[in-house]
């Protein structure tokens, strides 16, 4: 059993040993530069532990707090032959380097007619639940999922984290690799050997004909618990789908499930306007309409910033109980479709 944090670190060690072109750029990925304690930090979440000691300052590069510059530098380095891994601590900080993501990283290949490839990975954390306040708790990935040219990956357990990060690092396109800050210590069974999980292939965590539930990251973990209870207590069998990669997004897998179940619940923590749930709901409403037997349901955070107070943050986040209730309500919706 290994935690997400552990496998991230392991994959980085293995990939950097395998490929000399990989460099790490970010704040405090070593830590203590110029002091005797150099390397004593390994990134804000320990992902980079031991890399500085092993690969040195030429490849594990602490940068000043100036995200736009080092994200841009990673883009320039990728265009010229390196394979940078960027650490962006909290994805709330994508706001200070969004130009380098949106107008540079995502477009430079296209604008240059395919002359450059940009093999790089940005690792960052999203999500609420740690009482980190409005500026450190967001799930701000829709604005990057929206960008053609980027790939966006999420991993909700150590198995996915290992296979997806390894694939991301070997991919020749820019990949935004997102983890949820409440899941870093969650442990899972992980194969010892190397493996890559291909992008664009959703994972079925449970299979069932009654209802389709789609969720990523922390919401997937809650949905797993909720679906297990629904199965045990009410005999309700759900297809529980984690798309894992949001770009490419495996709508096809969701559609196949909806064809059987006729009912879709999307549980999501990103903004409830122009977010991931809206993207999926829209795709299904366009392409799977004839299979739907009830209105699509979205269970998401409300349209508010993330509040700090534990009392409010607990209300803000969808709960296992709400997921259960939403599934039950969705099944009760049969009437609606009969009416037509």
């Amino acid at each position, binding site marked *: 059993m290994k935690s997400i944090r552990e496998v991230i670190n392991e994959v980085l060690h293995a990939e950097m040993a395998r490929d000399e072109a990989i460099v790490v750029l970010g704040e405090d990925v070593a830590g203590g*530069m110029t002091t005797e304690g150099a390397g*004593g930090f390994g990134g804000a979440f320990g992902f980079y532990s031991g890399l500085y000691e092993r690969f040195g300052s030429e490849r594990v590069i602490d940068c000043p707090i100036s995200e736009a510059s080092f994200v841009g530098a990673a883009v320039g380095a990728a265009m010229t032959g390196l394979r940078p891994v960027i650490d962006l601590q909290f994805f709330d900080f994508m706001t200070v380097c969004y130009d380098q993501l949106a107008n540079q990283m995502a477009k430079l290949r296209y604008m240059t007619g395919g002359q450059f490839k940009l093999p790089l990975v940005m690792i960052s954390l999203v999500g609420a639940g740690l*009482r980190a306040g409005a500026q450190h708790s967001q799930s701000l990935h829709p604005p990057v999922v929206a960008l053609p040219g980027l790939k966006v990956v999420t991993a909700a357990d150590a198995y996915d984290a290992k296979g997806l990060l390894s694939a991301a690092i070997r991919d020749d396109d820019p990949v935004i690799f997102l983890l949820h800050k409440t899941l870093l210590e969650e442990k899972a069974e992980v194969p010892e050997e190397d493996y890559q999980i291909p992008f664009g292939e959703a994972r079925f965590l449970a299979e069932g004909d009654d209802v389709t539930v789609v969720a990523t990251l922390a919401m997937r973990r809650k949905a797993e618990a909720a679906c297990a209870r629904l199965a045990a207590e009410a005999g309700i069998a759900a297809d529980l789908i984690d798309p894992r990669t949001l770009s490419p997004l495996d709508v096809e897998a969701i559609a196949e499930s909806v064809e059987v179940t006729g009912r879709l619940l999307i549980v999501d923590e990103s903004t409830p306007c122009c977010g991931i749930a809206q993207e999926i709901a829209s795709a299904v409403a366009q392409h799977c309409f004839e299979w739907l037997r009830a209105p699509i349901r979205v269970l998401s955070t409300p349209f508010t910033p993330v509040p700090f*107070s*534990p009392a409010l943050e607990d209300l803000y986040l*969808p709960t296992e109980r709400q997921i259960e209730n939403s599934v039950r309500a969705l099944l009760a919706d049969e009437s609606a479709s009969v009416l037509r």
Partner: protein
Amino acid sequence: MSLQASNRPTESEAQVDLLESFRALYRIRHFERLVKREFEQGNIPGFTHLYLGQEAVAVAACAHLDERDYLVSNHRGHGHALARGCDLVAIFAEILGRAGGLCKGKGGSMHLADAVRGFLGCNGIVGAGAPLAVGAALTAKRRGEGGVSVAFLGDGASNEGVVFESLNLAVVLRLPVVFLFENNQYGEATPARYAVGAESIAERAAGFGLKATRFDGTDYLTAHATLGEIIHYVRESGAPACVEADVVRFEGHYVGDSQRYRSKRDVAAAQAERDPVARLEQLILERGVGEADALAAVRAAVEKEVEGAYLTARRQPFPEPAELFRDIYATDVGGPILPRGRSLGQGEVVP
């Protein structure tokens, strides 16, 4: 544009009430110690960054500010809020996420704010407060009452693009803003001497066309005099300035940071030699401004005040559920207006 190494107080030291200054420093000191203790015991939620070691800077700066003035703080802002005179109970309540907090519990440790005191708020985004201070200075200038605006920024923040931009914008528009860099030698785990490529933050800022000064921020009288001079200059000239305060971050970056990147020896030495509270205490004794028991009395009073405020804050209720949906907009609403009161995916919670 001048870069002076101003280590000598120029203002008459007699004007400074040392015992009251000590009270202000010690209030921050004890507040932060308490926060540390309670955080470690799991009684305070979230992330928190302590101001221990930097107390003299906030108190000295606020000594020269009045109700015309604006302050913008950063993630390490408890000391700034306390020095500005924000209500102790309300600060604690905010850090605890209670309804009576400065921000009704919605902000937390990283987002204290107090509109009536011109305290525009702490900020969780490194450097993001700098332009806010420039904007407040624009208001102050248009108001024409001599108000100034002060941005508290770290050494790490000095490398953020928006901070550089703000220096230039303030020069171009000639706005009364003080960029106050508290150089506590680290941005998280990264030493300033590594991350600031220039000779110093102040020297780099001087190149932008601002008056810039560097001083020892662990010596209260120096801090008081230097900041007095700079704030006076900005108030009178209407032009911006930069000050760099050399201080020591006594603790880790946040409570819980193991600091493997930092030598224990150096930290201990700094705490012994560059403790602003101890230095001020010693000065008071040396100058005979107060006896040891006067100091003890101040300490006791402050401790009582702070502990009492904390207990009061802890008794406060959490915000009621409807608060989740309040304060997003000043007028009407944003987001989707759904048919017949359907709600936006938030499960059982209804506005």
